[in-house]
């Protein structure tokens, strides 16, 4: 049990959104009536507006990635709930470029439907719209799961690469192809030693005994299909990395981008230890670790867990990834 620092559970998201807008007023503009953030600066070369969104509770995803070099707009929903189609529709109209707007959507039923409704409205209004669906979660890779793999950590990497690509003036069709290809070349696996606590009650979404680990956990309190003992971190990272590499099978010359991501309550000390183990495993397997990020990038409220994402890149992808970015949560 963990009490949230909040005035009221119903006010947690709106209070955070207005605080975020104030804190980053130099980078983003907030429309509280229609519920979306837009970037204050964008490259004049950009021909397509990039938009994402999803439930709150995954901060800094998505609003933290609005700004020059990355997203043009983000639509936050309530905690773990899809944004309404109205938010997406109006934000899309606000940021559509001469070649339209690209929706970057995590694969969840609610997000797919609401982004889909917004896309139908945009088509009716004569605005070109296309979608990249992110489905990188290896744990939900099963023929028994009709909705397919979930979208998780790779979302922010793909948003960064597409932002860099869009700034070169890349057209809508090429961005869709690139994003879809990147989603196919990215996999994530998450593990948690404690669930997130619900903002309304402070109660954990599920219970684990000390020393137990949920292996393949989702980012909304979905349990994994396996509970195992936590064991040592080197063995755990070994297993997770092995599973990711088995799924992705990078060639010896392929540059790989790695994301070691905290899910809310794991310390930076632990994350760097985990990164060290990841780098060791990749070196031993002769995988070329080209770029990496370590920190809290796609969270699940205060879940005590982490995820590993690997993306098999190429020369162009690294160029787009390295391009300048200036957002509340990512800048170089």
């Amino acid at each position, binding site marked *: 049990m963990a009490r949230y620092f909040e005035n009221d559970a119903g006010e947690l998201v709106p209070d955070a959104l207005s605080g975020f807008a104030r804190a980053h007023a130099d980078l983003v503009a907030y429309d509280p009536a229609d519920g979306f953030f837009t970037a204050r600066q964008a490259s004049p070369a950009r021909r397509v507006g990039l938009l994402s969104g999803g439930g709150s509770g995954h901060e800094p995803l998505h609003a933290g990635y609005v700004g020059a070099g990355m997203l043009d707009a983000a639509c936050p929903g309530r905690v773990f709930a899809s944004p309404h189609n*109205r938010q997406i529709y109006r934000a899309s109209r606000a940021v559509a470029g001469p070649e339209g707007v690209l929706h970057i959507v995590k694969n969840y039923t609610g997000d797919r439907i609401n982004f889909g*409704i917004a896309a139908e409205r945009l088509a009716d209004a004569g605005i070109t719209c296309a979608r990249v669906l992110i489905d990188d979660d290896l744990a939900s890779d099963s023929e028994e799961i009709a909705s397919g793999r979930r979208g998780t950590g790779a979302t922010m990497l793909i948003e960064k690469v597409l932002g860099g690509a869009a700034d070169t003036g890349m057209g809508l069709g090429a961005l869709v192809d690139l994003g879809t290809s990147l989603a196919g070349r990215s996999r994530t696996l998450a593990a948690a030693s404690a669930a997130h606590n619900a903002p309304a009650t402070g109660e954990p979404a599920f219970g684990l005994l000390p020393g137990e680990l949920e292996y393949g956990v989702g980012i909304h309190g979905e349990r994994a299909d396996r509970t195992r003992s936590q064991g040592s971190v080197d063995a755990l990272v070994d297993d997770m990395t092995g599973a990711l590499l088995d799924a992705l099978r990078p060639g010896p010359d392929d540059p790989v981008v790695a994301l070691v991501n905290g899910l809310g309550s794991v310390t930076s000390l632990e994350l760097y230890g985990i990164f060290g183990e990841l780098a060791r495993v990749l070196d031993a397997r002769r995988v070329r670790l080209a770029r990496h990020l370590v920190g809290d990038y796609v969270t699940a409220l205060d879940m005590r867990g982490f995820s590993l994402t690997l993306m098999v890149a190429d020369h162009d992808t690294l160029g787009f990834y390295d391009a300048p970015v200036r957002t509340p949560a990512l800048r170089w």
Partner: protein
Amino acid sequence: MTTAAFDGTRTREWIRRFADSVYATEAELTALDQRAGDGDFGTNLATGVRAAGLLLDRTDESAGPAETLGTMATAFLDEIGGTSGPLFGLLFQALSRAAADSGPGLTTAALADGTAQGLAAIRRVGDASPGDKTLVDALDPAAAALRAAGTAPPATALATAADGAWRGVRDTASLSARMGRASYLGERATGIPDPGAVGIALFFASAAGTVPALGPHLRPTG
């Protein structure tokens, strides 16, 4: 365009009767949805027709069918939470577009085109097929009936669409759900018609008159 085409006044009357039907059956819809969904569908549909009514009250009486249906679309798309209500909005958006493309009056051909386009949009968005126990099970036979109606007057064509939709509603009672909230219940939702499908049937049936209660329409026939 035949003289029987719906003008703005007839379209408005249709919408008003649809609203009356939703209010008259809201409790029954809620009861259905509590057994096979999360229980908010009746309220959501009522929110939609209420929002549409408020917008239509501010619209000029001389507004044509396209504008009237467009107002419905905006209300359902913008003002209803969840997903079923906004999906109705996509049907109204497509009907509005078809009405605008076909001229001042709402013809049977425009109704058939709009319903087919609305069905296609809803299927794209929801990834639902006939037989999945969703509103598609009522909308698909309604669209087929309108297409088959050819040059019949709109009132006649809409009556056959309503018959098809009610038949689809009754079929949903024998299905277990693959999509939507009811899918989590599996076999336990069998025997209960899909509330979204009922809403579609109410819409087409309202072209002829108000539906005061669901009971008679949900009994198996033939």
